[in-house]
């Protein structure tokens, strides 16, 4: 299972995209499938960076492929309890001038995931998302 540590900063995103594309290539999956995976990973990873502890510990990302499902795991072993699966769903029907930007990223994850789970124990949080790759 491809697994890699990334520094908890948004500057790590290009390395995360490269990691996704490398894994898809190894599995013989078309690169077109990478965009959706990258979107889910960006939203989850930036959530850890923005709302997690200001720790120097890296964040671990692993990917697992079992046709037709891809499972993404994000492990943060220096974290407080915060369950993003319980975050409120933003109202996407409001007029644009009344919108609040918060929660949109997790809304995207919910839209794209078949499974979205959170576990927290001994300061270790693990986010698991399973998504169907259409490409």
């Amino acid at each position, binding site marked *: 299972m491809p697994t890699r540590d990334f520094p908890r900063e948004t500057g790590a995103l290009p390395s995360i995209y490269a990691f996704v594309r490398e894994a898809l290539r190894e599995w013989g999956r078309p690169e077109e499938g990478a965009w959706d995976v*990258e979107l889910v990973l960006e939203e989850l990873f*930036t959530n850890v960076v923005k709302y997690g502890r200001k720790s120097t510990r890296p964040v671990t990302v692993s990917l697992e492929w079992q046709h037709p499902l891809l499972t993404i795991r994000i492990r943060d072993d220096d974290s407080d309890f915060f369950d993003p699966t319980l975050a409120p769903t933003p109202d996407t029907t409001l007029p*644009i001038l009344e919108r609040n930007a918060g929660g949109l*990223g997790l809304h995207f994850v919910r839209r794209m995931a078949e499974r979205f789970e959170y576990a927290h124990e001994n300061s270790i949080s693990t986010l698991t998302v399973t998504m169907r790759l259409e490409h």
Partner: protein
Amino acid sequence: MFTTHSRPDGTVALVGRLDAAEVPSARAALGALSGTLTLDCSQLDYVSSAGIGLIVETYRRLHQGGHTLKLVNLLPRVRNVFAFAGLDRVLTLE
């Protein structure tokens, strides 16, 4: 990597990935634009919630000045993200 290019016809092309890492520099670039604006998204490969937030912020700023914002030539995957956000109904997307 994200860049903007102003074209002779007055449109502004968005090029690359508009993600959380690129938003600070993209905010500086879009913040310098004024008036009624058309953004050509034919080379915009990717947008996330951070990028959507910046587009909404730009829309609000222009709207306050009595101007409009239009996005044209979106790739289907980018249009889908705007649709997930419910913005395909409230922003002008062509």
